[in-house]
Structures are given as C-alpha cells and as structure tokens.
C-alpha cells in the first residue's frame, strides 16, 4: 500500500469480529516489510501518548456510535454547498501543513476507521431514499482522504454499488493520492465522482507531505476518465505565495495536458482558512511552512481567512484562466460571501440554497 507505514493496529473491544476489521487485519498480516512490525493489540482506553505525527502510523479500528451521514458543518455567514459527509473515518495518513484535521482531531489521534460502516449501510441508504426528488451529494473526503486507505478498507467495494443504483445521489471520493485500483476494479461508474485536490506545484511539493505529486494525481484522473468515471477537482486551499500566478497556471496547463474538460462535473475553489487554535499547531508541526505568511483577518465565522481583496484576486485569476481552458467546468466557491462571489465569479447563487441548486443541476446535466 503506497508509502503509508502502518506500524500498529488498535482494535476496540467488540470490533474484532467485524468484517471490515477482519479484512484490514488480514491485509496487514500478509503485507510485506512495511507492515511486518505491526503488533495487533486489543486495548481500551486508547493510549493517549502519541508523537508529533499524531499517530498517523497507527490504525484505530472502532465502531462509530454517531450518525454516519451528516451535513457539512458550514456556517450561516457564508454560502455553503449543502454537502453531506459520509463519516467513514477520521484523520489521514497524509500530512498537509494546512490540514484542519490537525486541530479538529487533536484529542482523537490515530487513523480511526469506522469498521461498522457496512452494518450501517441500510440506515444510510434509507436516509437517501427518504426523498427521491432531493439530490444528495455525498462525500467521504472531509474528515479523511477518501482513497488513501482504500487498499486496506475497501471502501470503494462497500460504497460504489449502492450509490450507483440511486438516481438521487452522487458519491464523491476526494483524494490527494493516486490509489485508484479499488475504483478501477469496480464495475460501477454511474453516480460516482472521483475527485482530486489540486494546488500549485510549489504548495503541493512543500506543504502536502505524503501526497501524490501533481503529475501522479492528474495521471490517475486521466486513467479514471479513460475508464468512464466522472471527475472533479478542488483548488482548496488556494494560497498566495511567491510566484503563485505562474504556479497555478502551471497546474492548469497540466490539467489541459491530461484531462478532458468535458468530463469534469465541478471545480471548487476556496482560500486558506482556519480556526485560530490551528495556527500554533501548524507552527509547531511544520516549522518551515510559509502558509501562515499571508494577510489574515478574522472572518464572520471566527476563522482566520485572507483579507477580502486578496481572496477576490485569487478567485478572479483562477476563474479567468480555468474558463479560458473550458467554459463549462462548474466552477464554484467554497464558503464565500455573496459579494466575493459577484466580484470574482461575475455571478452569485446568493444563498446556500442557490449553490445547492447550481450543483444539483450539474449532477443532472452530467449523470442525467
């Protein structure tokens, strides 16, 4: 499995008989040298002593007690896309310096896999089926990378079939890896979106530790397009840095080289934003980072975000260049105000409801 070294697995009492647990443990015990040190312990409560890597080398297999399907925690002050998060895991083996999960899950370290996903599928699908007229956009990539651990968890196996059979839902796998084997092995394509988070070459190299290179991500995206998948992209977080214009242009050039723009359902853009408690964590865990160098103000939601003219400049630049490449990419902004929408995108969905409608229309247009 790629470059992620799982050194230990912790199984919560009772979860060891779960099919997903058995599957994961089976993979780990037969894996070559990078997992040979694995010692499988049954322990409760969770060992609180984790190092500076936030326990990214330890799998914690547990039964999730909360709701698996929940709305994305957007704030009312900004326009939100009304996305639904399918909470299959928390934390991520990648180590992006800007990642909000560093503070979200500060007290819940380790790669936490919710192994009772399969037994909760009926409930998840019942929620989706409750209103067949309502389009529900679901993603697994908010609290974890959707595909980084797929070779162990086989989320693609569990999720693709039921979602591809529903006409009122789409499932988006959001990743910074090139782990697409699980996707390609599946016969299902309908209602499945494979999505990559992109950035400038400099930010990708310097700030997204453990992630696939931009080229690898785009090669994987091309392969997925060739195999009949609908793809999407997220330029989030956009980060102004020395030579950012040239940097983001290079990424758009690479997209042009690898992708068919007609098969892209949407591209989102968001600028770096974070709750104030993340800043000291970033400083401590990533002392060489330059992502905190920008001009931040405290936004209406209490998060630090770039001063508005800077955000508008970023979005305006990206929009202009992406639209030059292709005029119908489903561009949208993540968590921005009506004013920023109008001034940088030339139109605004006005409210979250409007943005939901825009994205739902994209679903209908692409999937029918």
């Amino acid at each position, binding site marked *: 499995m790629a470059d992620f070294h799982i050194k230990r697995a912790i199984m919560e009492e009772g979860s060891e008989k779960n099919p997903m647990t058995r599957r994961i443990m089976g993979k780990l015990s037969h894996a070559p040298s990078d997992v040979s040190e694995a010692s499988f312990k049954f322990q409760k409560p969770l060992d*609180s002593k984790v190092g500076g890597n936030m326990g990214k080398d330890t799998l914690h297999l547990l039964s999730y007690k909360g709701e698996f399907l929940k709305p994305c925690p957007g704030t009312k002050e900004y326009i939100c896309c009304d996305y639904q998060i399918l909470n299959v895991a928390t934390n991520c083996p990648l180590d992006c310096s800007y990642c909000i999960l560093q503070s979200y899950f500060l007290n819940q370290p380790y790669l936490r896999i919710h192994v009772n996903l399969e037994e909760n599928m009926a409930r998840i699908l019942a929620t989706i089926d409750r209103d067949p007229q309502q389009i529900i956009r679901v993603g697994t990539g908010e609290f974890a990378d959707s595909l980084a651990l797929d070779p162990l968890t086989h989320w693609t196996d569990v999720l693709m079939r039921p979602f591809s059979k529903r006409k009122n839902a789409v499932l988006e796998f959001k990743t910074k890896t090139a782990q697409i084997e699980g996707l390609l092995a599946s016969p299902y394509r309908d209602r499945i979106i494979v999505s990559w988070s992109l950035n400038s070459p400099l930010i990708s190299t310097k700030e997204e530790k453990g992630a696939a290179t931009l080229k690898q991500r785009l090669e994987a995206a091309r392969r997925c397009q060739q195999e009949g998948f609908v793809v999407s992209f997220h330029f989030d977080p956009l980060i102004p840095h020395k030579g950012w214009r040239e940097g983001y242009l290079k990424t758009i050039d690479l997209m042009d080289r690898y992708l068919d723009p007609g098969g892209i359902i949407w591209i989102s853009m968001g600028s770096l934003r974070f709750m104030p408690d993340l800043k*000291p964590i970033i*400083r*401590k865990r990533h002392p060489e980072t*330059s992502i*905190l*160098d920008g*001009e931040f*103000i*405290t*936004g*209406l939601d209490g998060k630090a975000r770039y*001063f*508005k*003219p*800077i955000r508008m400049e970023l979005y305006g630049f990206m929009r202009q260049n992406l639209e030059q490449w292709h005029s119908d990419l489903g561009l949208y902004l993540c968590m921005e*105000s009506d*004013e920023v929408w109008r001034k940088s995108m030339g139109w605004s969905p006005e409210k979250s409801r409007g943005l939901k409608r825009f994205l739902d229309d994209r679903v209908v247009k692409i999937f029918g």
Partner: protein
Amino acid sequence: MIKVSYMDRLKIADILPQQINLNQIDDSSGPYSMSYGFNPGPLAASISRIGLINSPILAREGKGGAEDEFVVVSGFRRIRVLKKLNWTKAPCRVLPEATSSLKCLLLNLYENLPVRNFNAVEMGMALTRLAELLPKEEVVKDFMPLFDLPSHEETLHLFMRIETALETQAKDLVARGSLSLQAAKLLLEMDSAARQKICRYFSTIKFNKNQQAQFIDFVNDLSHIEDNPISGLLDEPDLTEIRHNERMNSPQKARALIKLLRARRLPHLVKTEKRFRHMVENLALPAGCQITPLPILKAPIISLKSFLKREKT
C-alpha cells in the same frame, strides 16, 4: 478527595520546636518550596513587631549531628525574612527522619492552601513537585481542582512548563500578573532568546492581555516572513525608539508598537483602512454624522450613524 493515608501519621503539633542555627538551613528553592515572587515587607514588619508566631518546619539532611544541614519543608518565606532580619537562630520543628518526600510536600501544600493565594508560578512549582512523586493522572484529578484549575493534562503541562521552562524574567512577570497565561503559553513555544527579548518589552511597557497576544503573534509572524530572528527584529531602531521614547507613557508605547507591527504584518489591510478614512473625510459629512466600516472591512456593509441633538430652548 485526597487520600487520608498520605497524611494520617504526621502529628506536627506533637513535635516540639527546637532552636536551629539559621546558617544550617538551606533557603534556596528546594524540593518542597512553592513560594515565588512574594513581597517580604509585611512579614518582616510583623516579625519585627511581635516576633515569630509559627515555627517553620524542617527536614534534616544529615545523620543527626550538630553540623547537619536542614531543608525547609514549610516556612520558606519566614526563614528568608528571618535571615534578612539578621536572626541567627529560630525555633523550628524538625520532622522525623523517616518522613517521606511526599508527606513533606503535602504538609507544605496543605499548610499554605487555606491561608494564601498561589500565583501561576507557585501553582506550577506545586504541581511539578507533585508530579515527580505521584502519577500524573492523580495530580490532574485530585490536586488541580485545589488550585481552581480544570482537570486537564494540557493545563497541567502548561503550569509545569511555566515552572520548568520559563526564565526568571518571564516567571517574575507571570508571578506579578503582568504576563497573561495566554501570552506565557505563546512564549513557551519560542526559543529562549526570543522569549527573553519579548519579556524585556513586557517588563518595561504595560501591554494589556490582548496586546500581549497580538505583539507576540505579529513578532512571530514577521520573524518567519522576513526570515529575521525575533531578537534581531526587536532590536530594530523603529521599535527601540518607541520603547525608549520618554515623551510617551506606557500605554501609548504599547499602542504605538502594536500599530507599527500591524502595519508591517498586514500592509494591504492597513492601507485600505487608511484609504477608507481618507474617503470618509473627503465626504465632508455634516456634524453628527459618522460612517464606520464593519470591523476590519470584512463585510461590504458600512454603518451610517447620525446623531441628532435637540436644541435647548
């Protein structure tokens, strides 16, 4: 609740005081001390006037001979003051040799807890010493509430680091209440040289809590952005001129420093604010009318205030 078994066999009142040479007592901050930054004046005045009321409690360091040294278990302040007042001997209670370190520490803690407030450094001293002798979980659960602190390991860690990692100057500021816990926490993330340089500003200029946090944040950010060590940054003429400006009082200096650092850290924002103010001035609004942007220009809305005064008849 603290387990009774820690203390149940120590009957201090049964130990008769004996005259001890003060030069045999080590009054450095020892293993049981939890006193920091106290003002010896009132205690010295009290002892000068009516003598020593309560005998300090000591532990013997040697084998029971006349040349033995003693370490202070309780009464650290009294011993210091007595020495200052040039007493040569004082009546002290000496604990039995078998008394454990934990019992000595708890004796001092419980003697002090009901009669005085602990400053943050003293809390750090007490908690650090407790954590050396007891499991951390026990310190968090049983002892932190005694200081009105939340039972969190993170908070314990902060107070222990205040005691063990901060330099004297920073500790003095914390003990006096001149350095907020939030600022102390930020300083603890920096290297010692940077911390000492910042504390030099805080010890001569009175910043309020928010200004302290802002000052540290701006200085830290600028040091990263400009690739200039904090010590170098704070020695720049722009900043030192304000620090040494004799025509400014302390709050004026604090405000001027924050303004200077903010303009350097957030140049676009500060320029936009300036432009906005200039634009409003040019509107020549009638008296009583005021236009203000919403805080830090983050929303497109401005507020227009009009103050109508009723003329006196």
